[in-house]
């Protein structure tokens, strides 16, 4: 490892622009003639639109145009799609209700867009929006997925037959039933996985520019995957043909899944730019983010786990109702199915598993993948159940897990996944040691002397990321392939540009991807530039989500680097009159192994472009591209141990220690990996302790629509984290890396709830464990 190569804690190349205020986010973009959009949204959770009167609004100062859904339909703009087909157990396809970018007849959740007002200033657009008169006929509302399944519930999409989108199963139900029937002990839990609002700090934004002279469209947008946005906008929404549409995702202020999807606003801004003849910018505010960003989680689950007399798991049955909101977002169907039930084996040998998932429409914001996407829900089910089972069986939580760990690899689970590598005991041991697990009893006693209730909880998670391979996901219903592309351009002076289809919105790709190149060719890291986020620069890519940029995106770069290296060695061998097989690359030079003959990297590059002296028949230049399609998922795993102190007077929980021991395979930049774990764990603690999304059951109003009511984790809610890693390299990709972006959010919630329930001696506590809820649990136990 060099000081800038793989494994080095290289300080980030991208930081300077952010710390000096020179980052370029979508809302920072200004183009000549630019005007401002404000969306008129539904105040009702479910209503028929009787009439719309924009006459007064159109006469307001600064108004350029007010556009509606009928005009959108006239112009052939398509429905918003769901990109993953799920079939129910009976073989029927999922029930899709139409999602129009601007609603025409019916609105189905508070925030549903109806009109867009374009005006000279943001304030004028909003002034005019208030002058629009819309008459609604309100309809009955349902916000709970369980209630939406009941007979007589309000029907949300008339064309979708019922509110049930699909009734899907994975695994062998008969085998799971038989195993549970014969079990010596069955642990049963009812579990709610609370709905979360992603809350990337940069609200979504879009700037659409139509150039009539060129008949060309450009959109700057807050996207995690600009190429997917271009593909979908062109192929499904008919906004513009792909060759006439440029999508730019510049600096993007966090995503966590919520910026994967193509939302109505960016479609409408582009379309409105053509309709009005001016560039149209929309910058969402935080209230709009709460109302309209795709939410996460929202599962209601019953789990039954059976054990034999020796405390080995014999079977598992899980029944989940997943709330998908008013419309099916882009990957909403995959999240509670193939990203969830496939992880129900956890880290354990379980011979029989069956998971049943019913996905349901409600009058709430669409729900889709949010950091972890399905895997936090699975982990929460597994690890709450394991901890509860240990308490019921009277054995230590660690021993119960140890007894059931999978220890030989590859391991085929009953729910599709084939785990390729891991050492679960190693991370459990590392976490127990780091947390001084043995010393807990003394700490608990010391806390009791201060009047505090101290508890400890653990969570042993496994997840699947680097979602892949394309053929496999295609067979499961995905509408896209999940490969990645890369292009490596060696310039004539030896500097290098790497074009990637991955997109960085905080992950530090400009640094880690450059470290990879530096490691391979010995060029200084400042001579390597990473290019991403612009469909005019990078041909195609699948973007960044599901912790895929390392395992998939970097693997594509490795493939392209392999090709560059092969050609570079041919050129060097020719220049040095040596055999190409004898050329090695060391310290920025191409050398003949075992001799003092060498040519510097930049001279080889120059030779490629002068083309004065190349091997016979070789094309000039040095630029190679590659597409990488993985052969398997990667399986990060680890153990988290959390300690809390509860104030019995108020119910307030303080997280006093949090230990993470993760196995991410090979690590490129430990500093960045640790940062990813910190952030993920903070979001997991947020889910477990602070963040609850509340809709009023009668009106469907979002009651937690600002930071006044939705508790974002703040610095004083969190401790400093103790983070470490163990390493089993991933065998399925060339770098041996697994992915670290989501693990923290996946593994942490059950550790925290297990700790609180340990502190207050109950198994019955739902997330978020607010002070009031914990206090009430304590009163109930008195």
């Amino acid at each position: 490892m060099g000081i800038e190569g793989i494994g080095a804690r290289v300080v980030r190349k991208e930081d300077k622009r952010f710390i000096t205020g020179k980052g370029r986010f979508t809302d920072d973009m200004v183009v000549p003639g630019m005007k401002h959009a404000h969306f008129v949204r539904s105040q009702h959770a479910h209503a028929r639109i009787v009439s719309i009167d924009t006459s007064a609004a159109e006469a307001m100062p600064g108004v350029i145009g007010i556009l509606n859904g009928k005009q959108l339909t006239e112009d052939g703009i398509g429905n918003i799609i769901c990109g993953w087909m799920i079939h129910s157990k009976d073989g029927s396809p999922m029930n899709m209700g139409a999602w129009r970018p601007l609603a025409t007849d019916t609105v189905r959740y508070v925030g549903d867009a109806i009109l867009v007002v374009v005006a000279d200033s943001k304030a004028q657009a909003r002034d005019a929006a208030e002058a629009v008169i819309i008459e609604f006929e309100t309809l009955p509302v349902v916000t709970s997925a369980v209630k939406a399944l009941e007979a007589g519930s309000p029907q949300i999409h008339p064309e979708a037959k019922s509110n049930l989108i699909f009734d899907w199963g994975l695994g062998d139900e008969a085998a799971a039933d038989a195993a549970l029937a014969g079990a010596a002990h069955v642990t049963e839990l009812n579990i709610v996985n609370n709905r979360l609002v992603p809350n990337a700090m940069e609200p979504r934004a879009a700037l659409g520019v139509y150039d009539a002279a060129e008949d060309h469209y450009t959109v700057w947008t807050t996207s995690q995957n600009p190429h997917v946005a271009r593909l979908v906008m062109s192929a499904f929404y008919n906004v513009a043909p792909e060759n006439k549409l440029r999508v730019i995702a510049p600096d993007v202020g966090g995503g966590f899944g919520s910026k994967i999807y193509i939302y109505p606003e960016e479609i409408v801004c582009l379309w409105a730019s053509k309709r009005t003849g001016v560039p149209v910018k929309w910058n969402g505010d935080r209230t709009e983010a709460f109302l309209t960003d795709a939410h996460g989680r929202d599962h209601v689950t019953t789990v039954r786990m059976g054990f034999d007399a020796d405390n080995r798991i014999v079977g598992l049955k899980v029944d989940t109702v997943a709330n998908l909101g008013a419309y099916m977002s882009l990957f909403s169907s995959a999240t509670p199915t193939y990203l969830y039930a496939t992880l129900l084996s956890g880290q354990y040998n379980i011979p029989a598993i069956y998971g049943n998932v019913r996905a349901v429409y409600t009058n709430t914001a669409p729900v889709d993948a949010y950091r972890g996407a399905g895997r936090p829900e699975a982990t929460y089910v597994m690890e709450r159940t394991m901890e509860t089972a240990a308490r019921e069986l009277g054995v230590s939580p660690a021993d119960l897990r140890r007894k059931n760990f999978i220890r030989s690899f590859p391991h085929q689970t009953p729910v599709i996944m084939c785990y390729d590598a891991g050492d679960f005991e190693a991370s459990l041991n590392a976490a127990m040691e780091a947390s001084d697990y043995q010393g807990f009893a003394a700490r608990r006693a010391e806390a009791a002397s201060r009047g505090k209730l101290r508890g400890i909880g653990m969570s042993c998670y496994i997840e699947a990321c680097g979602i892949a391979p394309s053929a496999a996901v295609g067979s499961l219903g995905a509408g896209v392939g999940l490969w990645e592309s890369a292009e490596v351009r060696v310039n004539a002076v030896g500097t290098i540009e790497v074009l990637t289809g991955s997109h960085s919105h905080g992950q530090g790709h400009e640094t880690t991807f450059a470290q990879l190149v530096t490691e391979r060719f010995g060029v200084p890291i400042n001579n390597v530039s990473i290019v991403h986020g612009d469909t005019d620069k990078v041909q195609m890519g699948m973007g960044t989500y599901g912790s895929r940029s390392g395992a998939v995106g970097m693997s594509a770069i490795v493939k392209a680097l392999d090709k560059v290296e092969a050609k570079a060695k041919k050129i060097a061998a020719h220049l040095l009159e040596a055999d190409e097989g004898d050329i090695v690359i060391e310290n920025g030079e191409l050398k003949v192994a075992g001799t003092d003959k060498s040519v510097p990297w930049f001279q080889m590059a120059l030779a490629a472009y002068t083309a004065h002296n190349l091997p016979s028949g070789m094309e000039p230049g040095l630029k190679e591209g590659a597409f990488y399609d993985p052969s398997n998922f990667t399986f990060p795993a680890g153990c988290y141990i959390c300690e809390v102190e509860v104030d019995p007077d108020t119910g307030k929980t303080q997280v006093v220690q949090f230990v993470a021991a993760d196995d991410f395979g090979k690590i490129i930049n430990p500093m960045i990996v640790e940062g990813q774990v910190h952030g993920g764990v903070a979001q997991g603690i947020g889910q477990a302790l602070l963040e609850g999304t509340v809709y009023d059951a009668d009106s469907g109003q979002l009651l937690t629509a600002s930071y006044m009511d939705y508790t974002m984790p703040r610095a004083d809610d969190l401790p400093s984290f103790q983070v470490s890693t163990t390493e089993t390299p991933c065998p399925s990709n060339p770098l041996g890396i697994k992915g670290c972006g989501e693990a923290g959010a996946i593994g942490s919630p059950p550790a925290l709830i297990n700790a609180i329930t340990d502190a207050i001696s109950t198994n019955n506590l739902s997330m978020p464990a607010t002070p009031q809820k914990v206090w009430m649990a304590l009163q109930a136990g008195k």
Partner: protein
Amino acid sequence: MTTVTMTVNGRPVSGQCEDRTLLVQFIRENLGLTGTHVGCDTSQCGACVVHVDGKAVKSCTMLVAQAHGSTVVTIEGLASGGELHPVQAAFREHHGLQCGFCTPGMIMSATDMISRHGGKLDEKTVRAELEGNICRCTGYHNIVKAILSAAETMHGARQAAE
């Protein structure tokens, strides 16, 4: 409409805007200083923090007219002569930022915090004083480290100068 004049990052500026214009809008839209961000509507996230007359304030919760005649420093004005401010340097050194959106507000808050507390900051104080700044990426771990490190650097430098 109102005419405002003030000093921003050491430069006298003036502009005409509606009375309802917020300081952050003036900074971003009139002056083109887009490092100051808006992340919420309820004065809580702190992405918009700037210094007005030497004190950290939320520029989304102040009319530009209220700042008429004031001295304003934004994130763009913190580094001097191409040299990063110690807080900026510490955020980079300790990986105190990921997506970078909350970062300008964090840094402006941190410089204010350090100037108010001198070298007497500890982790608990830093965490409490960050109440008005929300970050969704870092879990605050490295932000806290960066601020403590910068406080030590700046305090050490001050002591050395005395």
